[in-house]
């Protein structure tokens, strides 16, 4: 259990800069997600913290100790691999005991710790099975038990849930979180699944092209993304691109949008984002009837597609040659038909200046 500090770390593979001047700290006992598309450098960063790769530049501290040149077996870390990497030649108990045995623990201690760890992941009854006799979820638990039984200073997980089906994945997310709380180990979790990152972690670091794009609490990143990449990779976003003329954002097609009242951007090219669930759809006919004019920001458009997904509907709205997305919770309001002329409305404060 320890704080992990990554400072100005870079690693180049041939001509490809896999990790480019990354600095990030992981607080003691925190649950962190490193989120990014494939090739973003998130796994390479994790492997450098583990000790499988060594940075060209920069430093890595675990619990205050500089470890960037310490080999992996001396770092006292625990790691869970994407395909679990259980030793097929050992039983479940043998797998979990391995880390204790190579540390020279005595037989009685090993037996007790293995039993405790298997109890923690609720697999005590399968101790004598071989890995190939287990289901995916059970293997996942064994891998986790094996990684934490040695009481590592930091637990590293490399896309551990990606091989599981969706229902099982959700179960395992809850389980993983519970175990992490119980053990209290600093945990760094690599994933490309944004929902997973949002639901499981205390903090998220978003990576792209080997750099940390944004780092913060899930709500913070979702509500205040700093870039178009962060806005669209974590959740969905409509982007308004245009020119700021001092008062309003002017889109290419001539439409103008009010900025949030507290925004003070420089004149010139500007991008705004809004989450689809913040967009309200009002049929143009109803708008004319009520006589309420253009009080709030809005854009006129036409519904081109409706995607029904149970509790909500996602509409695609065409406006000025652009397609926008609106998510509407199904309440008492009826569904809108494709082809209906609508006004997209939102509160100015929901707009995000990128």
């Amino acid at each position: 259990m320890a704080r992990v500090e990554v400072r100005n770390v870079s690693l180049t593979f041939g001509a490809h800069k896999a990790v480019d001047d990354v600095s990030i700290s992981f607080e003691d006992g925190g649950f962190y997600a490193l989120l990014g598309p494939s090739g973003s450098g998130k796994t390479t960063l994790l492997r450098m913290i583990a000790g499988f790769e060594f940075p060209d530049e920069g430093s890595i501290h675990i619990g205050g100790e500089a470890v960037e040149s310490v080999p992996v077996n001396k770092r006292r870390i625990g790691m869970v691999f994407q395909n679990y990497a259980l030793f097929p030649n050992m039983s479940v108990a043998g797998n979990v005991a391995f880390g204790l045995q190579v540390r020279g623990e005595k037989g009685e201690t090993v037996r007790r710790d293995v039993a405790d760890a298997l109890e923690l992941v609720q697999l005590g009854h399968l101790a004598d099975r071989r890995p190939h006799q287990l289901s995916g979820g059970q293997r996942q638990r064994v891998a986790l038990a094996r990684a934490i039984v040695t009481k590592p200073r930091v637990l590293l997980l490399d896309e551990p849930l990606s091989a599981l089906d969706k229902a099982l994945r959700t179960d395992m997310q809850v389980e993983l979180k519970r175990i992490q709380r119980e053990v209290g180990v600093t945990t760094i979790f690599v994933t490309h699944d944004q929902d997973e990152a949002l639901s499981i972690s205390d903090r998220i670091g978003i990576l792209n092209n080997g750099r940390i794009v944004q780092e913060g609490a899930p709500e913070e990143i979702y509500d205040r993304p700093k870039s178009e990449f962060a806005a669209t990779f974590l959740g969905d976003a409509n982007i308004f691109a245009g020119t700021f003329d001092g008062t309003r954002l002017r889109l290419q097609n001539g439409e103008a949008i009010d900025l949030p009242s507290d925004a003070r951007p420089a004149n010139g090219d500007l991008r705004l984002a809004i989450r689809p669930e913040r967009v309200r759809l009002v049929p143009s006919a109803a708008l004319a009837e009520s006589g309420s004019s253009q009080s709030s920001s809005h854009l006129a458009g036409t519904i081109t597609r409706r995607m029904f997904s149970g509790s909500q509907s996602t509409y695609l709205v065409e406006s000025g040659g652009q397609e926008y997305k609106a998510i509407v919770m199904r309440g008492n309001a009826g569904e809108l038909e494709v082809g209906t002329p609508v006004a997209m409305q939102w509160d100015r404060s929901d707009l995000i200046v990128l």
Partner: protein
Amino acid sequence: MAATMTQENGLRKAFPLLLPAYAWLTLAIFLPLSAMVYFSLLTSMSPSEQSSSLTLENYAAFFSDPLYVTLLLRSLRLGLVVTLICILVGFPAAYVLAKIFKGRAREAIFLLVILPFWSNSLVRVFSWSMVLREGGILDTALNSILPFEVTFDLMYSYPAVVIGLVHSYLPYMVLTCYLSLQAIDDALIEAARSLGASRLTTLRRVVAPLALPGVLAGSALIFIPVVGSFMEPRILGGRGGTLYGTVIEDQFTAVYNWPLGAALSFILLAVVLVILLVSAPVLRKTA
């Protein structure tokens, strides 16, 4: 019920695919071997003696003369030594090939391993004789480097036979070990390392047990032919190369006592089979 049905069905479908191989094996191995079994039971094969009859005398000869047993034990020991050296030399090479080199470098090194397979075995053995004899390549090279005079003559000795055989059979070990090592997921090695295991411990507890089937396959491929080998012992071993295999060869090519040669061959086959049968359960347990 359903399982047997599909199995029968599968067998019927597989039959055309199995037929060529099994037809060939029957013709090429079973028939000549049957003939040999018959020869081994004859009193004589000389055409001048008309009264050739069936007997077990040839088999009895093996037990009556302690020379055969001594030679068989010598051959078995040679098989053991050669196999062991092949493991010690071949496994590390296979490990580097499978786990460290990638891409072009791997192909190049691989080629060097396979190369002995592409040269004629007789040429290989004779080229060793040029290296190992007194005044040969090795002797000359050593004397040009070392400040003092040495006479280095390995030719016609037991070590020469071992060197020649290791050279001939090493690729089998490298290839079988390579295949089983390559099948080991790199993540398993990384997992062991992340749990605190040193490289040596990882090798001992994870890599070696998982590569064992390859080592065993390679050992079987080497041990069996080495025990019956005659060419390398004959050319490189000289008087020191009298082994069970060379005695069998003599019966066929020099003494023309085919019945005895055949009988000795079958005794060797039986001994090797017994060794494999006895060791199989033990090895399966360790694997």
